[in-house]
């Protein structure tokens, strides 16, 4: 496994070509670009329906410079299972060569409608890397809440702010016995790239949860995408860690977190949260962030990598 240390290590192998119709400043395409630059060929990409799929595959155009398949919304992990097993079978018969399988899915197709297929694929132990670009809502259909939407966020289906916590997808997949589950942010490109390569080097189903700020749905100016991702990490809202066979390592410790308000005030989807009458929700949000961070610290202490 080749370590990535400089940007020039990644330059040259774009998997995505421009001319796709993603919004200006789309966090998802930044994340996906980085993933494909780091991924070691040969590989096949499977995507469910979502922002990425729609912006990249308007017939007769495609932004995919690598082989790519889209079937439906809820079954990317099932389709990927089929591709992976089929390539194994064909190789055994001398009818083809095995190639790696990478799923690139949004939070909708992973946390909600795609959850069953995800769980099934992980339980069966297929060799695949599952990348979830998390823009924290069903963005392509116009910003509706998903299980990945954080507490308090406004979406069209939670106009007064979501009341439920964000689903803890990484813990769920660690519980499935995945050999490698990690989080990443596009502003930490080196960490993201190395995690992609590390995940690919493992046997079995691996998962990379990437925060993908959405200027449109989170309501911030398009030039701030990387800043917002950075603040998500620096406020401990989106911790950067990896879990290898159930052993935890916090890759980016945040000893002095930035105030959460700094992150919230950049995004209009949290505007109401900063109003005095909603102080109790803000407090609940802060407590959720803190308890999760402490839980992570405890896990890293009890099961260190």
């Amino acid at each position, binding site marked *: 496994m080749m370590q990535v240390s400089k940007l020039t290590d990644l330059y040259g192998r774009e998997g995505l070509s421009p001319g796709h119709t993603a919004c200006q400043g789309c966090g998802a395409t930044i994340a996906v670009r980085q993933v494909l630059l780091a991924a070691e060929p040969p*590989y096949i990409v499977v995507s469910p329906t979502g922002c990425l799929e729609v912006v990249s595959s308007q*017939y*007769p155009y495609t932004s*995919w410079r690598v082989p790519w398949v*889209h079937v439906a919304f809820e079954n990317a992990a*099932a389709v990927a299972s*089929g591709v992976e*097993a089929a390539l194994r*079978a064909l190789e055994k018969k001398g*009818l083809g060569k095995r190639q790696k399988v990478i799923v690139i899915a949004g939070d909708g197709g992973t946390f909600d409608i795609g959850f069953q297929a995800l769980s099934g694929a992980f339980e069966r132990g297929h060799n695949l890397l599952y990348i979830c670009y998390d823009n924290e809502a069903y963005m392509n259909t116009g910003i509706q809440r998903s299980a990945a939407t954080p507490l308090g966020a406004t979406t069209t289906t939670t106009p007064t702010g979501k009341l439920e916590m964000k689903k803890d997808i990484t813990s769920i997949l660690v519980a499935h016995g995945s050999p490698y589950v990690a989080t990443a942010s596009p502003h930490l490109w080196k960490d993201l790239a190395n995690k992609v390569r590390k995940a690919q080097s493992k046997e079995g189903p691996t998962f990379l949860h990437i925060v993908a700020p959405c200027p449109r749905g989170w309501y911030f100016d398009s030039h701030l995408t990387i800043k917002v991702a950075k603040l998500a990490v620096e406020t401990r809202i989106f911790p950067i860690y990896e879990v290898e066979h159930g052993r935890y390592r916090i890759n980016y410790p945040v000893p002095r977190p930035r105030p959460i308000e700094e992150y919230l005030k950049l995004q209009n989807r949290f505007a109401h949260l900063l109003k005095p009458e909603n102080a109790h929700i803000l407090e609940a949000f802060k407590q959720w962030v803190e308890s999760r961070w402490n839980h992570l610290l405890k896990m890293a202490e009890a099961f260190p990598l």
Partner: protein
Amino acid sequence: MTGNDAAAYAVKQSDVDFISAYPITPQTIIVERLSEYVASGELHAEFVATESEHSALSACVGASLAGARAFTSTSSQGLALMHEILYVASGLRCPIVMAIVNRALSAPLNIHGDHSDVMGSRDAGWIQIFAENPQEVYHYLIQSFRLAEHPDVLLPVGVNLDGFTVSHSSEPVEVLEDSVVKEYLPRNERPRLDYYSPATFGAFALPTHYFEFKVEQDKTLRKAGEVLDEVAAHYPSPEGRLRKIDKFNEDGRIAVIIMGGTTGTLRYAIKSLRFRDFSLISLKLFSPFPSRELVEAVSDADAVVVMDRSMSPGAPLHPLASNVATSLYEAGVSVNLISVVYGLGGREPTIKMVLEMFEKVREIARGGGKRLSRLFLGYQGDGL
């Protein structure tokens, strides 16, 4: 072998690469047999026990697009759950073969045989073949792979067998040699997922493009009927050749059209000399619908009886009868049609019931009168 045994045996010999399936009564035996064959090494394929039928067909689509020969099987609720992906499989031109063990759809829940499951998906663009007995299940599954993978077709194929009456009934089944089947099913090149020749499968089409894709699919499905004859002509067992219709007692003046296992019951009833005025048209291909062959077979008849093992509630006619009526209309053939709904939820017609129905049909045919009559065979409720 039972119908399920025969299905599994045919799939084993057909050198499939990939199987993903989920158990459901009465299909489960097919899945179990195939698991055994894979585990024992008799069948070199990857068997993926997916967590649902929807995932099973999704995995087949992925496998098929990766270049593998893929198979799955299901019934009833499972087929209904796969519904969305049925359209994708045909739209993406995946040559998947599926054995559908026909079973009634819930609600109310019923695990016994009728055709409502496959009829609920008849617009999905799949080739649909109906087998009458385990022997046909065996022959037709093998030919389905060649038909599906034919470069002029590249469409998924369903082989239907009645739940329990065909799937679980045992009869002697003649099988071909492994090598003979292997020779009959060569591999063809088709576009596939490959890093060294990258393509995009499953792009979305705006209104500017969608219409043409669908019409093309329809055209291809219609042409598949011709390819079927060619595929069957090469089949090493002449008796086993896939055909669109089969005629029995052609001199009979009253034509009865039926698909699936109950064909045998009707044939037996007609054989008894009292009913030599009936001719039996056993339909093996439902989609693409062989209008021409069917009209030719019945255009001289005094009356045409169509047996449907499913219903289209609220519709003027049930699925098979509707297709027959339309075919006759287009050909300008004017003949009285008697639509019979039978066997729903596994209520298999007995010989006695069939003979009673034939008497009733004779009465109706003799009377001249109504263009279209509707009967239920075996219904025990009030009214009709």
